[in-house]
């Protein structure tokens, strides 16, 4: 603080820097508005029942849709949840209840650091774990990749949520003669459950939006597929393929498919927010 500078000067600097910071907000806001606006305006035209339910048509032919890709995404994300949600939430509960020793600290460190591993690297791991032994691409491989991505973030979020539950609740339950493990399950985790569900929804939203790890695990499929051992289409890979193609009508499909993806991801995010609000209503 330069006390020799005139007060007016310092005030001007203050106002200016506040303005600069406000401009930074605008600068961040512009891309957001641009992306959302363009996806909606360019993508809405292509929305139709056919788009949701039909298989993709070959180049040049009218119509066709992303039905199989949408089903594929839902299917693989569902499979990934079966593996990723229990492991992620379970690891988080472990860290909250027993995670203060050396093992716990190592697990916590690993969870934090693993959450930053690029998703494409996880794709290579899933390739090695599933595609090589199976000999071909499959939905399983894609699901495994997505589940590995879910685990670290879920574990950290769950740990935080469980730790937030006041210790007095555990004492109250134990004082009623409830064994510790039942207290953990039916009192502590139950209290944290709302937050955990929110964290799971966010993890699912993230998994639904992933592309890179699916490129060489689930690959792609022009047809309907609910066989986990076969290659499977996905919404994100479909967008990618449409976008980098040289055909204009496929570019239009890319925008529409993006709109569908944003709607799916958006609904999951909204659901997680709604749940948070409901949890707090009525209770003091």
């Amino acid at each position, binding site marked *: *603080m330069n006390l020799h500078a005139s007060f007016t000067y*310092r*005030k001007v*600097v*203050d106002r200016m820097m*506040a303005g600069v*910071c406000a401009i930074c*907000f605008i*600068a*961040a806001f512009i*891309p*957001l508005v*641009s*992306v959302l606006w363009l*996806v909606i305006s360019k993508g809405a035209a292509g929305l139709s029942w056919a788009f949701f339910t039909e298989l993709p048509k070959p180049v040049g032919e009218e119509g066709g849709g992303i039905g199989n890709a949408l089903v594929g995404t839902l299917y693989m994300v569902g499979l990934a949840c079966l593996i990723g949600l229990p*492991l992620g939430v*379970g*690891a988080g*509960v*472990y860290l909250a*209840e*027993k995670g203060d020793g050396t*093992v716990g600290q190592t697990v916590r460190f690993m969870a*934090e*650091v*693993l*959450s*930053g*591993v*690029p*998703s*494409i*690297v996880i794709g*290579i791991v899933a*390739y*090695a774990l599933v595609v090589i032994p199976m000999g071909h691409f499959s939905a399983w491989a894609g699901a495994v990749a997505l589940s*590995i991505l879910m*685990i*670290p973030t879920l*574990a950290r979020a769950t740990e935080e949520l469980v730790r937030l539950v006041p210790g007095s609740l555990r004492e109250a339950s*134990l004082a009623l003669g409830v*064994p*510790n*493990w*039942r207290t*953990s399950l039916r009192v502590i985790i139950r209290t944290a459950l709302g937050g955990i569900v929110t964290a799971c929804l966010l993890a699912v939203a993230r998994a639904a*939006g*992933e*592309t*890179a790890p699916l*490129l*060489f695990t689930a690959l792609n499929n022009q047809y309907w597929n609910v066989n986990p051992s076969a290659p499977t289409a996905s919404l*994100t890979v479909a*967008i*990618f393929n449409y976008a*980098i193609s040289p055909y204009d009508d496929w570019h239009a499909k890319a925008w529409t498919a*993006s709109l569908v*993806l*944003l709607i799916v*991801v958006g609904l999951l995010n909204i659901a997680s927010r709604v749940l948070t609000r409901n949890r707090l209503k009525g209770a003091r």
Partner: protein
Amino acid sequence: MAEAAGHLAVKATEDGRPGSGNLGDRAFNGVLWTLGIMVLVVAGLIVLNLALVARPLAKEHSLWGFITSTEWNPVEDHFGALTFLYGTLVTSAVSIVVSVPIAIGLSLFITQFAPPKLGRILTIPVELLAAIPSVVYGLWGLFIVVPWLRESIQPWLGKHLGFLPIFSGPPIGLGYMASGLILAVMILPTIVAVSVEVMKTTPEANREAALALGATKWEAVMMAVIPYSRAGILGAVLLGLGRALGETMAVTMVIGNSPQISASLFAPGYSLPAVIANEFAEATSAVHIGALAGLGLILFATTFLLNAGARVLVTAVQKGPKRVSG
């Protein structure tokens, strides 16, 4: 006497954990422990499998040779990572240079200058930015940002600053600059989220002391908030950098996929994740796949170190001001 009263002394359970003698508790603790260990197992699997897939590469290439060669020849199975390392570093550098000042300014605005209620609302657009999938950013980049660069920005830069090597060459839109800019948008939420958290932990007392001395808001920020949050903000930047390094889809779609090194930001190039994304599915020879996995290992190691470093910095700020300030 004393010994009779004490001979039935009972210790609280050995390890202090409640009721671990109880069967239910033991089973529950066992299940929890297994689930916790799974994280370590996953980490081990990642490293192990990357190494396994990359092994054929090691037969014909030394580590140093791999890192320093620009050759990428699937036909003769000679590979080098340098082109992609360069591309990744350049795009990440551009993204950091563009994103960090805006992110810090935005974080300061949210935590210091805006009224608290507005600050809370302002985090929503940031969260929305974070929720947009990477492939959608790529689509937007390909059809909006690239033409914008090609038709407006790059010609202007070429005309006025074309003597600088980084702004030389034909403005085609695709390339390092496009990737860097889109990456900047994508890593912004990460840097802002962590910076906001760190700035919020600045003890109010520090700020108030500065204000009580007659400082303006900005001066209070420079005197109290920035010095305290410095390490944490650096951690946030490292996290953002880690994200930039590993970002695949958006970069793949706008970088031009051209395996060459160029000094100009206008030029097309290639990045580590982009080449893996483009070639892995169709690579046939074990060495080719091994080379791609080797690139993956480099990515893994780099992001691992960055995230570990970031974590140390961020937790240092949250633990003790003594270790951080001034």
